[in-house]
């Protein structure tokens, strides 16, 4: 149908343990075009990471995909066998993680860990793979790659390790890179460098990116379109610029208002930073209707009865809220 690389349609994830089931992710749909960077934002536990894991088929029990479709490059990921899925991982869909400290095997030199990707997926010999690894390490701007390939992870800094992870993930030129909070564990200057690196490398190779973060700044930097998740539902999806200018969902609005802004004090005087009242409901007792409704200052009676359907917004994008125009 379309030329989207990844289509997630009505994805539903549940915790299935014994007889009680809890819904974790409900009715999430989004798509990522070729070469596009899509951001998924939400606070901890809202289901961003498990959405990503479900795409590569690595959800662990008791979590399970209980509905919806995952279409990658025209193929239904849910229908693929374990073996086919494994071939896809690393070669066409790669992932980088939050913790560069633990994501590398402490007992093998980093070069070997990069080289293994070529051996595993491209059928290269170890000799060829080693040369390719040096090249890959150079591509992620690690200085003196010929020497660094022999280094062990503990001899490298966090930023360097994350670069190595990126080199491993991009080794086979994947079509989709899933970045699960890739910079959370790094300090701000390194964070900026890493983001720039990911952005440049992916742009150069035409790799699509699914960027998962709770940091709106990161998303603004990296992505074309953004989806905001709250309590397992996608509540708003917008092109990046629109989102920051005119947030439609009260949750998005709250998120943006809770960020301190440089220079706002001079313009608007001293003001208390606004927070979103209350806490995220636990997955065991999500409220009926809109899940944000108990914390929402725009809530009306209908909000606690019906689930708001997506309403299209001008330009592109949608919001799931009955009262987004107020």
């Amino acid at each position, binding site marked *: 149908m379309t030329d989207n690389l990844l289509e997630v349609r009505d994805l539903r994830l549940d915790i299935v343990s014994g007889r009680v089931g809890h819904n974790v992710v409900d009715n999430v749909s989004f798509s990522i075009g070729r070469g596009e960077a899509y951001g998924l934002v939400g606070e901890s536990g809202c289901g961003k990471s498990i959405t990503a894991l479900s795409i*590569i088929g*690595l959800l662990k029990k008791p979590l399970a995909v209980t509905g919806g479709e995952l279409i990658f490059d025209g193929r239904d990921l849910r229908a693929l066998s374990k073996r086919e899925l*494994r*071939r*896809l*991982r*690393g*070669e066409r869909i*790669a*992932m980088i*993680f939050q*913790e560069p*400290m*633990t*994501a*590398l*095997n*402490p*007992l*093998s030199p980093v070069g070997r860990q990069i080289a*293994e*990707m070529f051996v*595993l*997926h491209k059928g290269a010999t170890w000799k060829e793979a080693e040369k390719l690894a040096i090249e890959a390490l150079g591509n992620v701007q690690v200085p003196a790659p010929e020497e660094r390939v022999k280094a*062990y992870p*503990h*001899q490298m800094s966090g930023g360097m390790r994350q670069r190595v*992870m990126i080199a*491993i*993930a991009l080794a086979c030129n994947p079509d989709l890179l899933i970045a699960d909070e890739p910079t959370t564990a790094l300090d701000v200057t390194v964070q900026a460098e890493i983001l720039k690196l990911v952005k440049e490398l992916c742009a150069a190779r035409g790799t699509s990116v699914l960027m998962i973060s709770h940091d709106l700044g990161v998303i603004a930097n990296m992505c074309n379109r953004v989806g905001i998740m709250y309590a397992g539902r996608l509540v708003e999806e917008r092109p990046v610029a629109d989102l920051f200018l005119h947030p439609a969902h009260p949750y998005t609005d709250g998120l943006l208002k809770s960020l301190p802004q440089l220079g706002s004090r001079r313009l608007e005087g001293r003001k208390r930073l606004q927070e979103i009242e209350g806490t995220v409901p636990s997955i065991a007792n999500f409220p009926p209707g809109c899940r944000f409704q108990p914390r929402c200052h725009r809530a009306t009676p209908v909000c606690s009865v019906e689930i708001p359907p997506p309403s299209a917004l001008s330009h592109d994008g949608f919001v799931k809220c009955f009262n987004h125009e107020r």
Partner: protein
Amino acid sequence: MRPRLNLLIGGVLCIVIISTALLAPLIAPTDPVLDADLMNAELPPDAQFWFGTDAQGRDVLSRILYGARISLAVGIGSQVINTLIGLALGISAGYFGGWWDDFVTGLTNLMLAIPSLIFALAIMAILGPGLASLLIALGLTNWSWTCRIARSSALSLKKQGYVQAAKTLGYGDIRIMITQILPNMIGPILVIGTLGMGDAILAEAALSYLGLGIKPPFPSWGNMLTDARELIVIAPWAAIFPGLAIFVTVLGLNLFGDGLRDWLDPHMRARQL
């Protein structure tokens, strides 16, 4: 410096012991079986018989040199079998979990519940005495600790970020077990493996004592010890030297295993450089 010293001393001891075992026919002063001479029985160590003689007048030194072949073969061979079985079962159980884990854990507990020597006795009784059956009997009965350690390490290692990362990068299960999990648990496995060699040498002694191991008159350190037991007051050297041989061998193997573990760990290696 210390870890290197371990490796050095252990390695030298192991090399010396293994080479004496291999070269026994060349360096032994007498034949361990045929050169019995009752006129020389129970002689204390002197210039001719460095380690003295036993009740049959055989040279203790020669018997120790030949006995090293049996003891080392049994100690190393059976422990290699044990470690392979323990690793295969333990890693797969910890990694896959589920019914396979339950099964392996049950089997391990069963093995631990039956004293391994009794189990080995039963196997020996079926197979009959001899070196091959000793290897099988001791190799099949002592893997439970290795298995337990491998399982618990695999359980914690499979939660590690790099194992998760390997999965997302498309590694297969077998590849993950061999390249990601196994190397990270090699330390404790080496230690328990080399410790177990000492146990195996002693178990061989026990089985030989019961007449199921190496048949006399052929020497093994185990049956030398048991023969010497009756002479402990009259001719203590007949017991002391085989005992020392076992002690030095086990010490050498343990130091070697220890040193190897430190050397294999890049963190430790970096500290020394």
